């Protein structure tokens, strides 16, 4: 806590306004531009107020391919709408061919499933923008990711790296320092206990109802213990659902068909158990 004497002293106030000075209780500011995530609750918790550029953002998931686009869709849609930085064109002459409005490309490295472009259209991603790189093995995936980051040619890079080791992530982070595009790495939940060079680490899970459950494992600034609940129902699905289904799960839960007892006791990961651990650790650190 800042002492009152410190805050009132004018010389200290000037010192505190200096961007280079960072206090552990305040959220880290970001020197690089950030991209609004489209979720106000998340933006408030991310240093710089959005997804960072010039660094890696690591998203850990229990199962890949469940809710990536619901989380990143709003940010990517806005980011990829912008005009790509063009090669300098000679101004006096008209270009020989009319250059179509170039939008920055989106690079997917090693996605868990086949991207379905008609569905991604809803997020504002056009077919011309998307490039799907499908490496044959983990080493190729790392190489392709590193080259994509280094080239700095894409509007955003999304890479699924289930087998990457901490040293390899460190190398990617070093490359990402020069990349103007946000880089998202999707990794399995099992690596949450490993150290990682990525300055932003999140755990993403589909939550109850239509929400996403997001836990900030690491960020620049104080630890954040509670899980965030982001309402992320794709707009076109909302039109499809009955109003009854849009209400909280507790209301419709009894209407679920009765589940036979032997099946309902199948072992399945308890959501709270998974999420409790890092939160407890963060609490013990404070």
């Amino acid at each position: 806590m800042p002492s009152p004497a410190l805050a009132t002293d004018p010389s200290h106030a000037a010192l505190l306004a200096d961007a280079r000075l960072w206090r552990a209780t305040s959220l880290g500011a970001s020197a690089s531009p950030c991209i609004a995530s489209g979720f106000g609750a998340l933006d408030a918790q991310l240093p710089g107020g959005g997804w960072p550029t010039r660094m890696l953002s690591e998203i850990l998931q229990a199962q890949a391919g469940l809710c990536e686009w619901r989380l990143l869709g709003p940010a990517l849609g806005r980011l990829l709408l912008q005009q790509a930085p063009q090669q300098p064109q000679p101004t006096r002459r008209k270009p020989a061919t009319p250059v179509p409005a170039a939008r920055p490309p989106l690079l997917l490295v090693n996605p868990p499933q086949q991207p379905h472009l008609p569905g991604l259209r809803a997020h504002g991603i056009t077919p011309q923008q998307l490039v799907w790189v499908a490496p044959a093995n983990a080493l190729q995936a790392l190489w392709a990711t590193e080259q994509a980051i280094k080239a700095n040619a894409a509007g955003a890079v999304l890479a699924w790296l289930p087998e990457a080791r901490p040293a390899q992530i460190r190398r990617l982070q070093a490359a990402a320092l020069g990349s103007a595009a946000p880089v998202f790495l999707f990794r399995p939940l099992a690596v949450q206990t490993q150290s990682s060079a990525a300055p932003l680490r999140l755990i993403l899970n589909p939550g109850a109802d239509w929400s996403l459950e997001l836990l900030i494992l690491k960020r620049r600034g104080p630890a954040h213990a509670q899980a965030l609940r982001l309402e992320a129902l794709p707009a076109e699905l909302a039109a499809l659902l009955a109003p009854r289904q849009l209400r909280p799960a507790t209301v419709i839960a009894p209407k679920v068909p009765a589940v036979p007892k032997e099946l309902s006791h199948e072992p399945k990961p308890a959501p709270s158990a998974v999420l409790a651990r890092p939160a407890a650790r963060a609490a013990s650190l404070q």
Partner: protein
Amino acid sequence: MALLEEEEEESQAVLLELGASLRLFGGLRALHRRVLQEGPAYGVQGLAWAPTSLGALALARAGIVDGLTQDLTPLLDSLPLHSLSAVAAHEPMLARLGCQRLGQLRALPRGPTARRFGAALLQALDQAYGQAPEAHAWVVAPEQFQARLELPYRIENAPALSHYIEQLLRQLCAWLAARHAGIKRLTLAWQHDAMRAREAGSGGQLSLGTADTTRDFGHLARLLREHLAQLTLQAPVGELQLRADEVLALQEHSASLLPDSPEQAREPLNQLLERMAVRLGPERVRRARLREDHRPECMQDWLAWGQVLPAASVRPALQPQPSWLLEPPLALKTRRDHQPLHQGQPLQLLAGPQRIEGGWWGGRAVDPQVQRDYFLARGASSGQSGLLWIYQERLSTAEQRWFLHGVFA
């Protein structure tokens, strides 16, 4: 601009008239240093400066570099007769007359010399000493580029070739620069050594294409290195050839006065994807084309890198579409009461059915005929499950009728 001239005789030499371009290259000393540094890569073995072209050539043959700061006449006088090509032709006869040096030849009376040896001899002598004007033809780059290089030793390992290929590539880039052109396709061929195994064949070749017209040496060298890394040579290689196949005019951009902004791509996307396609295989770098179809698996075609992406305007689908598509669809187990299960969890159907039928018009292999009812589903137990796009085969008697086809991720 430097005027390029070439001596096409027994000893190859390039003459450059630089009087008007010294400022461009930052002065004589800077240019001299640069030629010394970069020359060896292009095969330059000797260098000489002189006020006249034939004089410079004669000095270069004698191994004297500087003919500018000293008086040229005494320098040339001391050179042997074979330093000038026109004189070298008459060297045996002149030697019998007692002439060993150019100075001695110049001392002979001009009239009898011209009658005996022809006017060309005296003409060349006068030009070398700067007493007669010189006229040269411009060098015109050949229409076709084809260069060969004999390796100094036999190379068995493909990546080791890259150093020599870069020499050829430099020549290619210089040729392209002279023609203000770029390249889209080139061929690298190699000849195997004569002492090869019989089944190895006489050589091989590699064709290389780029997406954009380019004469960027760095990009071409990187591409070739990627190709070489995947190449296994059948036998040691003794000779290399490089040929330009598709040469196109290149629209050049002026460089910026200010340094590049960090936002600018360090490597254009096409070059990046090209390199990826070479290393991973073109079918692993994919771009999609949309098709107007109502069956989810027929809505898009994935094309390997290098295939032309036609511009197509496709109307958006009427129904919500998932963002991931499982190909092929994943068969779901069912409970006894026919409720589908996913990862051991019963699925709750949220919306549907959306009936999708059709495909009778195509062959079975290309266009699957489908009769399906699509549902939006998710795990029945509280949360922790994605939004799934599942379907039930209609009119099917098979055991497994439920399939997972997509995820609203």
